[in-house]
């Protein structure tokens, strides 16, 4: 795959470090935190079991028989001793697995038994992007975006998962475990972030050609920031005011772009591909593939299959002088 444009990910990441932005062990939500703690408990117990077994194996290598001993001969005392030792080892194994099962079940009940949240999202897995609908009792406050979820810090958010094509799996490891988005079914998962930050997620169920490029971002921010963001997302796109971007809009509206994409406030009403009303405000395009810059948008439009081979977006023939205004226009959709 071709890399287009410099990729200064560190600059966009408020956490300032990429080691942990999609890590199950660098946790930023109560659920992921509990899971990581449990992980370490399991690891320590199981590692101890492994070490003990290996020590037993090493000690077993001492030659306790003479060269000419009959292999069929057994010493009843040794047999008895080994039977007792093995029985104890098995009993200990049983205690271990029963306690781990208990621990697992307790954690499962605590973490997954109840799912709710004041904010509810509908996330639809698509080949190969995420359609995100913010639900609201007031129909005019419902809006759709793609690949970037904003949530208020410290509040549980209920995510309903579904798929419109094949099976996907929604996974933001820093916040919680994964849940599949299955065709013909609905699953739910609860998200909660303890600290403001950007957490990356990715589709975890193989879903075809571009399974590798099906990322998403969860951005946790303070309540006021979140409400501001939400208010802006609900609103339609601002009509462009400079001629270059006006031309870009014209190009967008007269090309096949509108068959698939929607830009609220314009005539573009396609629902097949990501909603672009505020595409410029999102950090990535192509489902976490390219950082949103004017150059990257242009590169994506010129050759989407060079960036993400097999993507459902066709290559739209454009005149060279149409690219720049179009990219300008899209990038300005903040």
């Amino acid at each position: 795959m071709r890399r287009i444009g410099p990729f200064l990910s560190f600059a966009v990441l408020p956490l300032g470090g990429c080691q942990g932005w999609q890590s199950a062990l660098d946790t930023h939500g109560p659920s992921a935190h509990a899971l990581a703690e449990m992980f370490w408990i399991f690891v320590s117990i199981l590692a101890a079991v492994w070490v003990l077994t290996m020590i037993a194996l090493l000690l077993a290598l001492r030659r306790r028989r003479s060269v000419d001993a009959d292999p069929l001969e057994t010493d009843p005392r040794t047999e008895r001793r080994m039977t007792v030792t093995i029985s104890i080892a098995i009993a200990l194994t049983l205690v271990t697995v029963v306690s781990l099962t208990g621990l697992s079940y307790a954690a499962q009940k605590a973490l997954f038994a109840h799912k709710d949240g004041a904010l509810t999202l509908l996330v639809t897995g698509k080949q190969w992007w995420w359609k995100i609908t913010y639900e609201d009792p007031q129909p005019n406050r419902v809006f759709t975006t793609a690949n970037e979820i904003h949530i208020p810090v410290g509040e549980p958010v209920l995510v309903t998962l579904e798929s419109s094509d094949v099976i996907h799996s929604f996974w933001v490891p820093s916040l919680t475990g994964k849940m599949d988005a299955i065709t013909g079914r609905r699953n739910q998962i609860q998200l909660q972030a303890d600290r403001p930050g950007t957490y990356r997620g990715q589709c975890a169920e193989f879903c075809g050609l571009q399974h590798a490029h099906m990322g998403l971002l969860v951005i946790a921010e303070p309540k006021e920031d979140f409400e501001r963001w939400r208010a802006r997302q609900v609103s339609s796109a601002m009509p462009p005011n400079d001629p270059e971007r006006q031309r870009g809009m014209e190009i967008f509206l007269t090309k096949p772009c509108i068959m698939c994409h929607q830009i609220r406030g314009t005539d573009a009403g396609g629902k097949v591909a990501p909603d672009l009303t505020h595409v410029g405000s999102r950090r990535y395009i192509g489902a976490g593939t390219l950082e949103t810059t004017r150059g990257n948008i242009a590169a994506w439009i010129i050759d989407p299959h060079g960036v993400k081979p097999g993507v459902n977006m066709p290559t739209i023939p454009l005149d060279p002088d149409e690219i720049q205004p179009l990219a300008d226009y899209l990038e300005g959709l903040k």
Partner: protein
Amino acid sequence: MTRAITSHDLDAVPEITRLVTGERGGLPGVESEADSPPSPDELRDDQVDGPELTARLARTWGTEKGIIGALSTVDHKVIGRRFIATAIIFLFLGGLSAVVMRMQLALPENSLIGPDLYNQLFTMHGTTMMFLFGVPIGEAFAVYLVPLMVGTRNIAFPRLNAFSYYVYLFGGLMIWIAFMLNIGPDVGWFAYVPLSGPEFSPGKRADFWAQMITFTEVSGIAVAVSIITTVFKLRAPGMTLDRIPLFVWAELVNAFAIIFALPAVVTASATLMMDRLVGTHFYNPAEGGDALLFQHLFWFFGHPEVYIIFLPATGWVSAIVVTFSRRQAFGYIALVLSLIAVGFLSFGLWVHHMFTTGLPQLGASFFTASSMLIAIPNGIQIFCWIATLWDGRPVIRTPLLFIFGFFFIFVAGGLSGIMLASVPLDTQVHDTFFVVAHFHYVLIGGNVFPLMAAVYYWFPKFTGRMMSERLGRWHFGLAFIGFNATFFPMHITGLMGMPRRVYTYLPEMGWGTLNLVTSIGAALFFASFVLFLYNIVASARRGPLAGPNPWDAGTLEWAAASPPMPQNFDRIPVVTNREPLWANRSSLPVVAGLSVENREQIVPTITHGRADLRETSPEPSIWPFMAAIAATILFVGSMFTPWALVWGSVPLAVTLIGWFWPKPSTEDEK
């Protein structure tokens, strides 16, 4: 070495008398053809001895020369050798596809191969390793070794066994040829719907996968039937249930697991093909089908499948641990019962592959409990093997080195499996590289390392020559380091959020270094296999001659020549101990009275191993091969049109009629 047993000499095995004394067996008052006294005109093996007996039996049981002879053979050793070689070739092909994938993943955003080829590669890798290597390799060893170990002359249903091999070979060839033509399946070895359904996988790619399942399952089930029948009805006289070698027990339990598990996946793949070919809607939610049903069916097979791969390996481990500990197995009964328990429990775990599909919480947690519970019988086996080594006098040769590798790796993999059994933990690691690491620890640790041990151990029996010990040690060292360098870092990559089945990843994910280490490890690991191959080829030509029992082992296969004669044994041994060659060091008791001119075998009673009947084993025949070709035409054709089932059944029927055409047995002619 051998001495004939007489009727006065039967205190050890009071049951076997009839063949020797000519007394009637079976139910009193019931006339049976098998009870007829041996014909006086027919040469019996108590009438000739020494080299003449060997030569005459070899003629009776031998395979004819020439291509027709080679394709007609029903000798379990010839078929078994082909089975083993073919499965190992598929292991190399599967390994090669993995190496290419690792080259692609060595660097972030690598452009070596694109997503299409990558998806085909991981599908071929998984499919090959699971269906074309994992299941067949265990059965292949059984085909070769079980008849020898139970002391008989051929496997039960030898023609069915030959047919199975050709079906397996043709199925494997079909899918690899499709891959070479760039129409290989690209939906993963699990082929989840709807991705593999008609809407999202147009073309024939997914059909190749589904039809390959048909081939391998027909083959797998048929071999399993032969193995079970061999173990139940062809054991040497005196081999009571508690004298059956642990390897044979493992293969028996494995064969049962195959018979019960494979139909589930055949149901899944056949219904998938029907969805694709004739527009049924088993898996189409829009028409009332269910996408999740496929996963249940697939994993109802898929989890036992893991044990189908592991169980034969426990047989290899048991055989090798006992021989190289110079001590009989500690806890034989416990080991056998554990095997059976594993066989049963393996059918109750499948949902742990589906913990993230949104199943009811309580239901899912039952599968946590059952998945953890299987640690108990597996633990018993590990402890019994360690105890055997403990009280023995371990002789550290290459086979045992690989068994140490097995302990080190498999135990680690089994323990990380306990994490996956936990529903909450699984939600984090499921479908990530952590799982990839886990199951390679379990499968390579649990099958491939024991397989290497088994090849070093039985190579002298297969070829008559020893493998190089020096190369063997290098091979082990390289494989052990290569394996751990490849798969250990994957645990961390997975926890750092890298999902499975991605053909590339962004540089800023921070997975680059670990992936590079993994890829270098994979190259080392592959190099170890190249060394292994070299060792096989070189040793087969120039290795030191082995003799019948180079390791001074105790089970019956070591009583046969290396490589064994077509008849395996000149006279059928009488078993008085679990380790017959250790119990009868000076001479092995044998039973006499079988025909030298006909393919006669002893059929014992199931539990006590009393000689019960004489039964003729089928002669070589070309029909199984022809039937396999007809079946292949039918299977391949039915990927393209349902009419192939109609027209393709005609040649299949013809070949089957040829195969089963009643003919008077040589016995009856006289």
